């Protein structure tokens, strides 16, 4: 009673760490977490569970007030790979369903300042979320939502992407140059332009310390809001897309070969949040 009466500030959010095997290192510019915002949590759970074998669980550490399943952890092969936020619990009328890309920083306060200075909008200023670390939610200078985190115990080590796990992250935006400038300013990325299909320069890879971290390309869907798109490594995109509609999702781009190698597809889950599928390696 006393704790509650002391004021609302006593109620805090405590999220578990993003990894159970932290390195004590922070890999600047690395995408270390993915949160699914969804207004159809049960259907989304079934969708991703059936398609990719992902498992959902309630966090053990519960400190906040609200429904117990408003946030779920996602595991693949026993490893933490993301979270799912029930947007109904936020009391929002708008459908904000989407996957949120969370990028690692060494100093989140400085990174948030750089984001604001580079034309971004601070949706949520850096805030402690317990054992996970400190997190901020940002809208970039072109309007795409993403998050930054300064992990408390360190980031997970780089590892080879596994089947049905995360493979790559990429921004689809209406202004590639502007977006690239923003992310360079915030994270200190270097960029490389890559020929992707038939143009000399149509895909931008952002690197940190010579490590490719994320990509940027023109939004292929005309009129759609800029958005981060996350890729899942799959063995056979066609086999996945064949199950999508029965699970309440939609196939937005059928599986197809890429000129550079491999196959890709783009699907949406029951809430409408998009996610891409890709084979890996390229050949």
């Amino acid at each position, binding site marked *: 009673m006393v704790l509650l*009466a002391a004021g*609302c500030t006593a*109620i*805090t959010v405590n*999220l578990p760490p993003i990894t159970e095997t932290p390195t004590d290192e922070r890999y600047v510019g690395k995408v270390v977490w993915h*949160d699914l*915002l969804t207004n159809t949590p049960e259907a989304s759970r079934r969708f991703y569970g059936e398609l990719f074998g992902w498992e959902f669980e309630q966090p053990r550490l*519960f400190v*906040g007030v*609200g429904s*117990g399943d*408003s*946030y779920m952890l996602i595991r693949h092969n026993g490893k933490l790979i993301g*979270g799912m*936020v029930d947007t109904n619990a*936020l*009391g929002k009328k*708008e459908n*904000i369903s*989407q*996957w949120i890309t969370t990028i690692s920083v060494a100093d989140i306060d400085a990174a948030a300042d750089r984001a604001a200075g580079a034309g971004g909008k601070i*949706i*949520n200023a850096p805030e402690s979320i317990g054992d996970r670390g400190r*997190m*901020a*939610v940002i*809208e970039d200078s072109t*309007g795409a939502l993403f998050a930054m985190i300064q992990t408390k115990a360190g980031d997970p080590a780089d590892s080879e992407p596994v089947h049905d796990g995360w493979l*790559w992250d*990429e921004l*689809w935006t209406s202004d590639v140059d502007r977006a690239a400038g923003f992310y360079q300013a915030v994270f200190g990325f270097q960029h490389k332009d*890559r020929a*992707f299909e038939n143009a000399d320069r149509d*895909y931008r*890879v952002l690197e940190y310390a010579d490590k*490719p971290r994320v*990509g940027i*390309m023109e939004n*292929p*869907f005309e009129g*759609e*809001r800029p*958005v981060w*798109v996350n890729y899942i490594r799959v063995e056979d995109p066609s086999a996945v897309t064949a199950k999508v509609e029965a699970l309440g999702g*939609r*196939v*937005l*781009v059928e599986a*197809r070969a890429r000129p550079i190698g*491999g196959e*890709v597809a*783009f699907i*949406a889950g029951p809430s*409408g*949040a*998009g996610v*891409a599928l*890709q084979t*890996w390696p*390229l050949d």
Partner: protein
Amino acid sequence: MRISKIRRVAGLSALLALCSLLASCEPPQVYGSVGYSSYSGGGYYGGGGMNTSIRVGGRIY
């Protein structure tokens, strides 16, 4: 008897005061909702439907 009544009234008053205090607070953050509750934009909802001419990106190396 009278003391007991005073205690009950005092206890009830304290409870009402606490309820009032809590009611005046901002809604507590729902677990896991950090930052998202104040966002009003959108992600991708597939409004364009399936399109065979769409070029999807992906990892290069």
